């Protein structure tokens, strides 16, 4: 299996993951969507030096990973390309902010280092929450939930079709890279001289495929209106999940649990 086929397999796995049967999968999509938005909003609201308070926010993804049965390893593996980019955010903070904020033994930790760590952790937490939402909710159910919140139909359809288009493009890329590798044995990757024509061909081929798919939709009565899967009616359990989680997020936002526990032990 080449790299592209692996990527395709991983993409398809997301659909299978989302079709799981855990209690988290069973929650209604709007509740999960709102909870994720609340979580991301709270995480992003932490100040740049509030590292200890922020760290405790890991509880939500950890609990969700546990209950949903989605593997943490799969998160780090699937997002292995995005994660370094997220981690790179704030890499220059230690250069610009050298003010020593805390002293660990004889080592002084500057504000830049703390703000860098805060930014990195915020990024990872937000990615974790989004990944968990995607891994526990099928894409069309998620889109249906977005429509429930009156997001424009065009935008939601665009989101859904883009998600599908990634698969089509990856399929074409898999075929092309395999054909290339078979005629360039011993060569690692695609030679720079072929990049231009390769990308051009990829675009043309995936556009052709996308057009065929679109025609296939048109021939089966599609007329700019997608019939999403029915959204499960939200019950008291879903409301309790959303309200409970949001209350916990707010509590963790305004009460620095890590510092509180730390001060108890230090005394």
């Amino acid at each position, binding site marked *: 299996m080449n790299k592209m086929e692996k990527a395709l397999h991983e993409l398809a796995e997301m*659909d299978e993951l989302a079709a799981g049967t855990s209690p988290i999968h069973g929650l209604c999509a709007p509740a999960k969507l709102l909870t994720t938005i609340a979580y991301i909003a709270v995480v992003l609201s932490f100040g740049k030096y509030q590292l200890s308070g922020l760290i405790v926010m890991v509880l939500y993804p950890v609990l969700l990973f546990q209950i949903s049965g989605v593997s943490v390893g799969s998160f780090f593996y699937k997002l292995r390309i995005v994660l370094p980019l997220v981690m790179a955010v704030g890499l220059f903070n230690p250069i610009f902010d050298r003010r020593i904020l805390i002293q660990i033994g004889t080592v002084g930790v500057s504000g830049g280092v703390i703000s860098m760590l805060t930014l990195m952790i915020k990024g990872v937490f937000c990615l974790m929450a989004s990944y968990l939402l995607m891994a526990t909710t099928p894409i069309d159910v998620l889109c249906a939930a977005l429509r429930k919140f009156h997001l424009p139909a065009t935008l939601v359809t665009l989101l859904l079709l883009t998600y599908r288009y990634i698969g089509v493009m990856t399929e074409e890329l898999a075929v092309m890279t395999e054909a290339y590798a078979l005629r360039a044995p011993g060569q690692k990757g695609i030679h720079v001289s072929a990049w231009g024509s390769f990308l051009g061909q990829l675009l043309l081929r995936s556009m052709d495929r996308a057009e*065929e798919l679109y025609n296939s939709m048109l*021939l089966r*009565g*599609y007329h700019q209106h997608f*019939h999403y899967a029915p959204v499960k009616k939200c019950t008291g359990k879903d409301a309790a999940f959303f309200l409970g989680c949001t209350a916990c997020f707010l509590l963790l936002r305004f009460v620095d649990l890590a510092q509180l526990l730390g001060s108890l032990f230090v005394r």
Partner: protein
Amino acid sequence: MIEFKHVDFSYEKDRPVLRDLSFRIEKGESVGLIGANGAGKSTVMKLLLGLLSPTSGEILVDGVRVEKKTLPEIRRKLGFVLQNSDNQMFMPTVYEDMIFAPLNYGLSREAAEQRVDAVLQKLGLQELKHRHNHRISGGEKRMAAIATILAMEPEAVLMDEPSSALDPYNRRLVINTIRELKQTKLITSHDLDMILDTCERVILLSGGSIAADGPAEVILRDRALLEAHRMELPFCLAGRA
């Protein structure tokens, strides 16, 4: 049911693909559209489905002219099975793909689901219902693609190379399924054995016009005619003709 009247078509000026094409297919007929590569078979299908517009002439389905404003009505009557099932099955599961058309045509989810179940049962594919499209084999995918079209309850079924890239078992399965369909059928294929098995009439296209039109048993036994148009006798007849 389907009528082409003096249809001309070209993708580029001065390079006609179809020239003065006229034929008529009656309700319930099974017609095989054969011809060498580039003869214009796929173009005929695309014109019929309104994916292309003829340069001149007219195409009628049940007496209704194929044009922009009649496309929804026309497409509701015609079910098209694509050559590449991957292009037809774009939803995550077989069920979601099958229910796509009935929902678009205004059926309630319950009614659409009943129809999906009925088609799956008829084709003996119940086991595929909740399978993910990327997890099923090529043969299963082709059968599922036919099922998605039958869920539309079309009046005519158009098929582009339905037996291509299938192993003998799955090919036979597809042929048997096609034979049992009651709808009008228009099938393009290079698999002349399959055409002989499923169609009573054959239209042989060559250079964009009709070279022969008649009973499959007659045309597909005519070695000279077939060879004159870059084709061969079906394998099952090769030794006996």
